[in-house]
């Protein structure tokens, strides 16, 4: 009923309409009686025809007809002629109902039902569709029905593609035709149909859509199709391993417990549990990472059956990020030695993207783990400062290469035609006079180009992209936040695009074992991106930005100190992703907006009985039910963290009551708001 204009009646028409209504009411009650008494005589069925021709939305009558047809069919001896007569009558009724209202769900559905009874003559259906599609070229019921008929009759997708050629040719504003084209082409390209190789077909499609865009740049249809093409140009279906920690060829230094050693070129890592995370980052969410799909070859004992866990919200079994914990302290003493660890991803098939594509090419990487025997007793736990004791990164050194392989070129990707296609589009859009959509498309094209091109030219692209989004923010304030987020993503891509750029933001923290510290403060970031390139970071300073949430940081499994001071965090729920960071000890969320208003997410995230099970029957929950209820969002996050130092000052929620709550939930806390706690 949406969007179907109802006529406003003039007074003189009202009498006529009342008469009509009375007649309809009579029909309706007669029909109901027939329906409830299961009367399927010719007269009774004719009556439902009359009713439907007046009111095609009477879905009960459509169902009645289905029952009547079944009834009739059961009485005849599958005489094909009789069957045809019965079903033809149904098609006729549908057709005349559609003439009354061609947006009737019930009528279209009834026709599908008749066809799926095996009664079909393609020619007829397509002829009828032609009629309706000429009347309303955007009628989505008709398009849906068309796709249904095509599938049922196995009409070739090439023929259908030609039909979209015609439709677009006569009206290039018809987005429904463009949409159908994308659906058909996706399928043809995916099964590599004859003449449909991406490197040939996609450049042709660019030419087609350019025609529409440049004829009238205000027409939206072409732009969306263009966006789809860009996706086809950039995206590779097969999932790839983007990065890992430790990365290929890197050396890591492992301790038992905490240590004060100084190994400037290495990532030093200590943990009380005697294990370290092995992180795999894929370019799309995948499932099926396990000890059989990923094998480890090393002398480190006890790692034969690693447990791989997806780092994802909730209990999803697919994720871009997977982590396993490798033991480096076993019963046998094995200190003071170097171990090579060989990881083979995709050893046996089973890693599958959420869209169903297999991780095909297996990939192997090797790193060296240096296990130290200096077991230091838990050193005195000083406060971690974000201002003192940092050494500037030596940009000349090759340290960074030992920590992370920054660019894994997608070598197996047949990238030449992709680069050419994108480069051609960029040239074209640079010439298009300034329009919002033109700028946005150019920014997206450049982003795509930066993703698949060499290091050397990347920086230039990012600068141009950043300028474009700045322009857009000024030009189109109604979509400000969207451009702002895109700007943040581009900025982070730029920062992480080259060793030079990145090392400008890197530091070593002397007091923290020379931990690697990344400072991305004061960049007006509203969103986090590019974490796949930052897996080695142990201290992260994001203070003085505009972040609303920590989403994305969950991949940074080495993170032990995080500074989120002076951002726009509004609740502890926004910090939920931190629950995945098992190493996190120091967290600064001072001067945010936590507690300024109730975080009643049920206002739009309705609670359901499904989710009630988790609500606390644990210690703190039962000891302090009122505080746990009051601060439930803090409770759910803090109880899973293992913090030693927390800064919360400068938030509305901060205060004596909250502090005492925190002490209960985080018993190991040593520093709160810069003050040492008396234990």
């Amino acid at each position, binding site marked *: *009923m*949406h*969007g179907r204009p109802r006529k406003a009646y003039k007074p003189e028409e009202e009498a006529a309409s009342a008469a009509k209504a009375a007649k309809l009411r009579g029909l309706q009650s007669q029909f109901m009686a027939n329906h*409830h008494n299961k009367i399927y005589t010719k007269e009774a069925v004719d009556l439902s025809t009359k009713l439907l021709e007046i*009111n095609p*939305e*009477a*879905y*009960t009558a459509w*169902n009645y007809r*289905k029952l009547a047809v079944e009834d009739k069919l059961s009485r005849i001896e599958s005489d094909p002629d009789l069957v045809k007569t019965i079903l033809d009558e149904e098609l006729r009724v549908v057709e005349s109902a559609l003439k009354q209202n061609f947006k009737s769900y019930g009528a279209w*559905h009834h026709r599908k039902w008749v066809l799926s009874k095996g009664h079909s003559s393609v020619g007829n259906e397509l002829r009828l569709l032609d009629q309706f599609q000429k009347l309303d070229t955007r009628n*989505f019921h008709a*398009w849906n029905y068309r796709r249904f008929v095509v599938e049922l009759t196995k009409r070739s997708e090439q023929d259908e593609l030609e039909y979209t*050629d015609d439709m677009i040719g006569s*009206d290039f*504003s*018809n*987005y429904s035709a463009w949409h159908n084209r*994308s659906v058909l082409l996706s399928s043809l390209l995916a099964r590599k149909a004859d003449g449909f190789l991406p490197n040939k077909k996609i450049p042709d499609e660019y030419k087609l859509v350019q025609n529409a865009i440049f004829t009238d740049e205000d*027409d*939206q249809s072409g732009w*969306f199709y263009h966006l*789809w093409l860009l996706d086809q140009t950039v995206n590779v279906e097969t999932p790839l391993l983007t990065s890992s920690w430790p990365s290929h060829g890197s050396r890591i230094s492992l301790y038992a417990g905490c240590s004060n050693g100084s190994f400037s070129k290495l990532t030093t890592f200590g943990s009380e549990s005697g294990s370290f995370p092995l992180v795999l980052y894929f370019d799309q969410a995948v499932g099926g990472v396990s000890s059989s799909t990923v094998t480890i070859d090393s002398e480190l004992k006890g790692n034969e059956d690693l447990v791989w866990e997806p780092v994802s919200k*909730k209990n*999803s079994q697919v994720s871009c990020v997977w982590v396993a914990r490798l033991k480096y302290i076993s019963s046998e003493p094995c200190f003071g030695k170097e171990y090579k660890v060989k990881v083979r991803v995709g050893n046996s098939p089973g890693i599958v993207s959420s869209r169903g594509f297999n991780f095909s090419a297996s990939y192997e990487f090797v790193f060296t783990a240096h296990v130290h025997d200096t077991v230091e007793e838990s050193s005195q736990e000083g406060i971690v400062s974000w201002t003192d004791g940092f050494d500037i990164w030596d940009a000349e050194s090759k340290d960074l290469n030992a920590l992370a392989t920054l660019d894994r070129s997608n070598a197996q990707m047949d990238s030449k035609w992709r680069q050419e296609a994108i480069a051609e589009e960029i040239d074209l859009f640079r010439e298009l006079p300034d329009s919002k959509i033109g700028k946005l498309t150019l920014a997206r094209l450049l982003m795509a180009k930066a993703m698949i091109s060499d290091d050397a030219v990347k920086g230039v692209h990012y600068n141009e992209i950043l300028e474009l989004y700045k322009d857009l923010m000024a030009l189109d304030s*109604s*979509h400000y936040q*969207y451009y702002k987020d895109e700007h943040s993503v581009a900025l982070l891509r730029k920062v992480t695009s080259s060793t030079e750029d990145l090392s400008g933001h890197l530091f070593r923290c002397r007091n923290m074992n020379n931990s690697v510290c990344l400072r991305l403060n004061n960049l007006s970031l509203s969103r986090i991106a590019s974490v796949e390139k930052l897996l080695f970071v142990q201290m992260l300073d994001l203070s003085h930005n505009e972040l*609303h*949430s*920590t989403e994305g940081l969950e991949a940074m499994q080495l993170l032990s100190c995080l500074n989120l001071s*002076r951002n*726009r965090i*509004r609740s502890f*729920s*926004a910090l*939920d*992703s931190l629950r995945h960071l098992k190493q996190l000890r120091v967290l600064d969320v001072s*001067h945010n*907006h936590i*507690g*300024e*208003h*109730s*975080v*009643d*997410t*049920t*206002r*739009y*995230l*309705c*609670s359901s009985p499904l*989710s*009630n099970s988790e609500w606390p029957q644990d210690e703190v929950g039962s000891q302090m039910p009122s505080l746990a*209820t009051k601060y*439930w*969002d803090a409770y759910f996050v803090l109880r899973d963290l293992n913090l030693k130092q927390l800064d919360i000052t*400068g938030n509305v929620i901060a205060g004596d009551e909250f502090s005492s709550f925190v002490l209960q939930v985080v018993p190991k806390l040593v520093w709160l708001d810069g003050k040492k706690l008396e234990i």
Partner: protein
Amino acid sequence: MEELPSITVSQREQFLVENDVFGMYSYFDTSDIATQKFMVEIQRDKQLDYLMNGLRQLGPSFSSLDANRPWVCYWIIHSIALLGESVDDDLENNAIDFLGRCQGSDGGYGGGPGQLPHLATSYAAVNTLVTLGGEKAFSSINREQMACFLRRMKDTNGGFRMHNMGEIDVRACYTAISIASILNIVDDELTRGLGDYILSCQTYEGGIGGEPGSEAHGGYTYCGLATMILINEVDRLNLDSLMNWVVHRQGVEMGFQGRTNKLVDGCYTFWQAAPCVLLQRFFSSQDMAPHGSSSHMSQGTDEDHEEHAHDEDDLEDSDEDDSDEDSDEDSGNGHQVHHTSTYIDRRIQPVFDSLGLQRYVLLCSKVADGGFRDKLRKPRDFYHTCYCLSGLSVAQHAFSKDEDTPPLTRDILGGYANHLEPVHLLHNVVMDRYNEAIEFFHREA
């Protein structure tokens, strides 16, 4: 494809609409203040007259002519509630009685007495009864039978069927889950595979179509998104592209269109603006943790937080979109403005042009004599009245981070005289009525 024609039908139609809309806007801009004030006024009395009249015309016994009477009830009664009014006892009893007769013996509501139970009309009936409120309305719904009906409509592909032997689509999924969620009868069986079905309807554009393979569409996008939020699987959608799609459905006319390259239509004020706000809230608060939170739990904390003294430090880094926060203009209309700074921090910049949208609705969709319409030159109807008003309410509250925060005068085109009740974005019923209903149905469980 050889030569493209210079101007297509869609372009001509678009041009004509723009002409009408901009004509209206320039007339407005050149009018004097008093005329302008009159033009943007919602005309409460006229609206109520139109709605009440409609309700009465349904006849004393709500005769069952066509197949969507419960919808007409919902469109009208919800609109009245948005205007902050309610219907008198007679009408209320009449409506409860009528809907009771639409309720099938095996659960669910049909389009009229005796008609097959249907998910869409069940949704309309439940939302109407929630909006009417009160024990009598609530307890007239047979929850157990409704749960059975919903289970019968569940298909093995994860989606729902509109009615017995009916079509499967995203509308059916939404209406089923919205009902189940309000009545507190969601279970594993109902949600199984549902997220997968909705996912298969998201198109490359980012919006959601009615069924797999369909073109993205505003109404279905709302339905699909709300469903995914209600079953707690929203992060499985491609939210970036969804956000991108939906914000760009607002065009130069300032109203929303329903699909790419279609004409603006007032009803999409709700279907598109609500997803904008839902997505923005999702992004800005990352609602992952609160498994097990129920509305009662946090309700108690609302007042407590209000009493917190405002922290000086936050003034410096308050959102830059509030830099224009000069003294609150026009605070003398009875609306209490407490400490201004509390508002600053409870405010966000919507991802769509809220005032522009309100302008479209009030100048182009509103009919001076009451009622709302698709666009200029079109007749009014109850469907458009309901969704224009609902969308207007969403737009007015889009600057607030939560429904507890009343909008500022400047957020509401036409000022507080035009203020509408806030709605629950996932069910589109007025917030207060939702809270009352939720409490009732949680007690029932």
